[in-house]
């Protein structure tokens, strides 16, 4: 009888532990370089604070020929990527996948999308506008932007950590990585997903609500 009691107790405890361990309490990692900074507290002591890599100030022209700056993404999480409209390799499938994410968060105005063109000569705002319309995107939620070669290529490699470049040996003239970069409200990189891989894009769909929930706390 005593054994029976112990067994029941153990079983109950195990069940409770097992069930409570299932609770999802996930946070996304913070990517990029980080450094430390000594901070003086009000009482005279100093503590060490971490400074994370952030997306710097930018200003690009969008598909409506309007300047897009960081202010447009204030208080929002956004997905950034790099493409060009005449691309025949990975861009179509990247944007096919990103469009499904866009459709899913269409009514959530805390989520935005930012596609940078790396074809600084050809992809003028009117070309980008046509591209957006054909993709089925309307309104300011998904911005397609164009800037000088230097500004786009620098922000890609230094800030979003996506490799881009001009390549005369490539048939399309440009090469780039297909990452979809998830940026939080504090301009920090919280995820990078291969836009050509449906499984990773599905993960992005799951991670956006996690990030939104975290920022509500």
């Amino acid at each position, binding site marked *: 009888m005593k054994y029976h009691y112990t067994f029941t107790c153990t079983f109950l405890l195990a069940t409770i532990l097992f069930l409570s361990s299932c609770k999802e309490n996930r946070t996304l990692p913070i990517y990029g370089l980080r450094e430390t900074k000594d901070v003086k507290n009000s009482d005279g002591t100093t503590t060490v604070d971490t400074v994370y890599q952030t997306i710097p100030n930018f200003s690009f022209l969008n598909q409506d020929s309007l300047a897009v700056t960081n202010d447009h993404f204030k208080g929002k999480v956004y997905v950034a990527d790099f493409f060009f409209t*005449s691309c*025949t*390799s*990975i861009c*179509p*499938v990247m*944007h*096919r996948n990103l*469009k499904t994410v866009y459709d899913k968060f269409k009514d959530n105005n805390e989520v935005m999308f930012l596609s940078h063109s790396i074809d600084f000569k050809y992809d003028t705002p009117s070309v980008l506008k046509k*591209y957006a*319309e*054909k*993709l*089925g995107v309307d309104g300011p939620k998904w911005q397609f932007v164009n800037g000088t070669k230097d500004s786009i290529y620098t922000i890609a490699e230094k800030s979003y950590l996506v490799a881009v470049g001009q390549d005369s040996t490539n*048939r399309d003239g440009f090469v780039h990585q297909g990452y979809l970069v998830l940026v939080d409200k504090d301009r920090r990189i919280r995820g990078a997903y291969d836009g050509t891989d449906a499984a990773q894009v599905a993960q992005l769909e799951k991670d956006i609500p996690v990030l939104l929930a975290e920022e509500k706390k």
Partner: protein
Amino acid sequence: MILLSLFSLTLAGIFYSCQTAEKIQQDAYYVNGRDIYIAQCQNCHGERGEGLGGLTPPLTDSVFMKTNKNQLACIIKNGMSATVTVHGKVYEGKMPSFNMADIDVAQVIVYITNAFGHQQGMYTNEQVAADLKNCK
């Protein structure tokens, strides 16, 4: 009696499992064509030939595929910059050219004209070679 019925059953089995040489060749073209399609075409035209919004036309318009069948080889090999109407919708983008051997073009054509709800049968590399002489 049992022997007889067994015999006739076997005969019927042989009869139904039998495929013509042409059908076997078509299946081989179809399978190879699918591999080429996945590698070269699927990015834009999609896994199910559904196209991409207003950017890339779908390959699911059976009437288009039938009436333009002898132009498919030219479109694949030389690309396309003219506007095209598919399913009643006008597409004006540019399709790049694909440098493929005639047999690869034939295999892709067999795949795209027999997948996505089409059933147009075999297309040989001789037909492709003839088509390529008459490109618009």
